[in-house]
Each structure stands twice: as C-alpha cells, then as structure tokens.
C-alpha cells in the first residue's frame, strides 16, 4: 500500500486544500467545530505537513477528523488559500478506504450515514425526503413536523407538491430509468465500493467487539454506534 501522504497527494482536493500552511490559526478561530469540540484545524494541517506515516495513521484512526462540520468557513479566511475542510474530506476518504474509521466512536457512525442517506439516494433519488425524517428519530423537529409527517398525503398536494407520485414537481416519484442511471454511476465511480468497504470494516469491528451485526437496524452493533 502507498504511504498515507502519497494517497493524500493523489486527491485533487488535497492539492487544492493544502499549499503552504503557516499555522497562523485563523481557520481555528473561525471554525464552528472548534467552538464545540476539542477540534483544531490548524493542528490537522500541522500534522499533515509532517508527512509522517505513524502520525498520519494515528490521525486516520482518531476522533478529531470526524469533528469538522464541512461549513468551509476556513476556505474564506485562510490568508494562504488553504482549505482545511478539503483536507478533512481526503483524510476521511482514506480512513474509510483503509477501514481505520471503525477505531473511533465518531468514525464508526459512517455506517449509520451510509445506511440512511446512501440507501435513500439509491432507492428514491433523494438524499432526504419527508418520509425519511421519522419523528421518533427526530424529536427536535417538533409537533408541527409530527403533524406534517402524519398528514403528508393531504398536505403536500395542497401546496403543489407531487408527494411520491410519478410526474413533475417536488417530492415526485423519480422514475426507475433515472434511478438505474444513478446506480450505474455509483457502480462506475466507486460509491458502491466505498459502501462495501464501510459495511465490511463495520462487520469486522462488530466481530472484534463480539456484537451482533446484520443488514437491518436490529442488531447490537447498530445500537452501539448510535450511543
């Protein structure tokens, strides 16, 4: 396997995201994640610039890389035109490809996202759609959303939405030919492979922890990673 730094350099986002960081810390000052987590994009840039294989492998296994919220405020402010948010994208990709993401609590959550958003895209053509936002999993949405969720069949069409029906408009049922094209793109460009890597590494971790694991949500590992 290539050294981690070489894998990073092969990604155009790394080439665009890290040119010459002088560690001024403006990115950390503006970063919403740094205000919430013990997270420091300045430190991430510093560690990446060492190019040290051990340091980078530790980074791929750690919690910190999953704390960035991808707002990309750092891109606006860096006086050297670096983008720590892009570097994070590259590190996260490699962490998933190498399976190291399962060594951190936040990293293990990728399985949840893959099964929720990834499956939604392939099954419906949407990242998010109304029926995906189940009030039981989204108490923060409040009672109006409960009402919307329960009465969507009546409410959405009143507002001009197609609501899971074939044809044009919002929340329309996307035709099978278009979904097949989407699935072909996922197969052709590596998304299906990434999905498999996430599943495989998660299954291995479940085995290591002696937790049950299955394709549905009703297993010990899924409950474990939701905590």
């Amino acid at each position, binding site marked *: 396997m290539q050294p981690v730094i070489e894998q990073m350099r092969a990604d155009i986002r790394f080439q665009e995201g890290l040119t010459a960081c002088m560690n001024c810390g403006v990115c950390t000052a503006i970063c919403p994640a740094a205000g919430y987590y013990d997270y420091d994009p300045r430190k991430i840039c510093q560690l990446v610039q060492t190019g040290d294989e051990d340091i980078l492998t530790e980074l791929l296994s750690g919690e910190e890389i999953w704390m960035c919220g991808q707002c990309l405020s750092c891109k606006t402010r860096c006086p050297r035109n670096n983008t720590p948010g892009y570097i994070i994208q590259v590190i996260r990709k490699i962490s998933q490809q190498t399976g190291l993401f399962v060594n951190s609590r936040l990293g293990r959550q990728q399985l949840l996202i893959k099964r929720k958003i990834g499956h939604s895209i392939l099954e419906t053509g949407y990242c998010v759609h109304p029926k995906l936002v189940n009030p039981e999993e989204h108490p923060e949405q409040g009672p109006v959303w409960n009402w919307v969720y329960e009465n969507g069949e009546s409410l959405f069409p*009143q507002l001009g939405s197609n609501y899971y029906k074939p044809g044009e408009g919002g929340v329309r049922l996307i035709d099978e030919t278009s979904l097949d094209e989407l699935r072909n*793109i996922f197969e052709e460009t590596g998304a299906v492979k990434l999905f498999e890597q996430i599943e495989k590494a998660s299954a291995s971790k479940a085995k290591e922890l002696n937790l049950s694991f299955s394709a549905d949500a009703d297993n010990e590992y899924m409950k474990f990673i939701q905590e």
Partner: protein
Amino acid sequence: MQTWKDYQKQVPDNHFFYVRSCIRQSFFPGAEVAFLRIMQEYLKKDVFEDKRHTTCTGIGYHSDIIPLETIMTVVARQLALMTEAGYKNLLVSCVTSFGIYLEILDMWHHFPDKLAQTREALWRATRREFEVPQVVVHASDAIYHFRDELFNMAQYSLVNQETGQPLNGVEHVGCHYAKIFPQKGFGGAEFPTVLTGIIESWGGRVVDYPERRHCCGFGFRHYLVQANRGYSVSNSKVKFESMAPYNPDFILTNCPGCNMFLDRWQYTLSEINGVTYDRDGRGIPVLTFEEAAGLVLGFDPWVLGLQMHQVGVESLLDKMGVRYSAKTKYYLGNKNEVKPEKPSVLMV
C-alpha cells in the same frame, strides 16, 4: 476601487434550467412552488425543470459517503439533462447544491483531466454527454436580480402597518453560498447582499448582528446522526443569542437547511431551556426568500406552506397587515381537521 461590499454578479434575464433541493421540497414545498410561479407567471420567465433530475448527492458528499468522482458524475448527469433541453443557465434551489456545482466546475477548470474522466464515466454509466453551464445562479440571486420588478407588483411590504416603520430583519445567508467562492455570490462572503438587498428593497431594515456570518450548525454528519445533534443546536443558539438583543421581527434565510434549523431549533431550545428569543414567547418567525417574496406579492400564507413552520408566522403577518384566515391554517382538504400539538413553551 470595487470592494466586496459593492460586488455584483451577473444574472441572466431569462432561460433557466431549474434543479430542486432535497431539503426545500421536503420541509418547505410551498417555497419552491411559489418560486416557480413567481418566475413563470409574474415575471414571465422561461424556467424549465426536467423531472428526471435527482439529488446532487451533496448531503452524502459532505458527510463523506459519496466519493468525489461519484458526485462529479451525478452533477454531470444533471448538466446532461440541461444540455439535452438546450439550456445554459443553471438555476439552483439549494445552497449546498449551489456550492457543489461551483466547486466541481472550479475543479474541472483546474484539473481538465478530471473533467475528461467525468465525461467518460457519465458516458459509460448513462450514454449521456454534457456541456458545462455558462452561469450558475442560486434561486435567491434571481429574486435579488428581479427584486425591484417584483416590488412593483407587491401587495404588501416589509413595513409595520401600525407604526409605519420598517420591520427589522436579520438574515442568514448560509455558508456554502459565498464562503467557498466569494466571487460567485452577491457581496461575497464578508458583505453578502443577496438577502439584505431583498429586505431593503421591499421596505425592511437590516440588523447586522454580530454572529451574522456564523454557521447555522448543520454540520452534515452532525445533524444526520442523532447523537451529534448537540453540535447543530449549539451553533444555532450562538446565532439566536446574538440576534435577540436587536428584537428582530423576522429571520430571512437563503439555504433551505438553515431555514429548517433556525425554525426547529427555536422550538428545541425552548423545550430544553424554557427560553424564546423574542419578547412575547412566540419565537422569531423564519422565512425563506421565496416565502418572503410570496407574502409581499400577496400569496395566501397557507398556500405558501407557512403552516409547516414550527415557529408561528402570525406575528409577522399581523405587522405586515397580511390578510389571512386563522381557521384554515391546518386545513387538510376533506379530512377532519387535526391540529398539531402545542409545544410546552413556545406559544403558537
């Protein structure tokens, strides 16, 4: 010397290919309907939507389950549909998607090999071909561009009808509108004018609160995973506490995700902490730019879908003098009327 404050982007006057937002059509379906109606019926513009277009996969991309090559090719498919329909101006409903399109076009410009690889991948997967758009316009850019024309057709303004004073609006422009590519948004990242221009042109007053540019807290993976949502609500709290001293009459948003969070987190924070960020315990109404345009043009608030907001909008409607029926707010056609439960703190 031109400064960011004066920066203006070019918006074509006509002929747009529209791509929807997953979040906007799920949470604010009336906003997209109103936007198309405003563009097509009020402004008489040619706006075309191909029903075969899909998500851009941006939420998956920014939560790291979608590879760069995949999102590039999905975007290429949308552009292929645009090319097949004969359009060159891409009109985008979603701020996340807007950032995605700009970012990918920028990468293709810097790395032409990547563009060639994407063309090949799209051909192998779909047998489609595409041209890059001449212009990428966010839907709010279009409303900003035509704001004066729209105000000439207005039935209401952002003025308190009792006092005659401008209503106080705070705006939240959304990180991916101009933080990634400042030159692609009105006013850039430092002095975004896309929403302030709309507010001021329609009679309102803009309050420049300290945390105006702070993220709403979506954080992609941080909202998607229930255990991480403290990140999201905490960042919105920073904004509410910053804007509350100015007693805003409304919040105007650009991004559908931000609109949802700034609405819903007021409810959540009221349940957690027992506080609201207005003086009357009703919360600060949050509007998308399409909803604001619809109200000013005289659309029925419940046809606009404002009943889907958790924070009631009636305080704003009353100040604007908008006529509405309180009785029909939760009307559901032939079904017996079922109202949402009342929150324990937030007054509705």
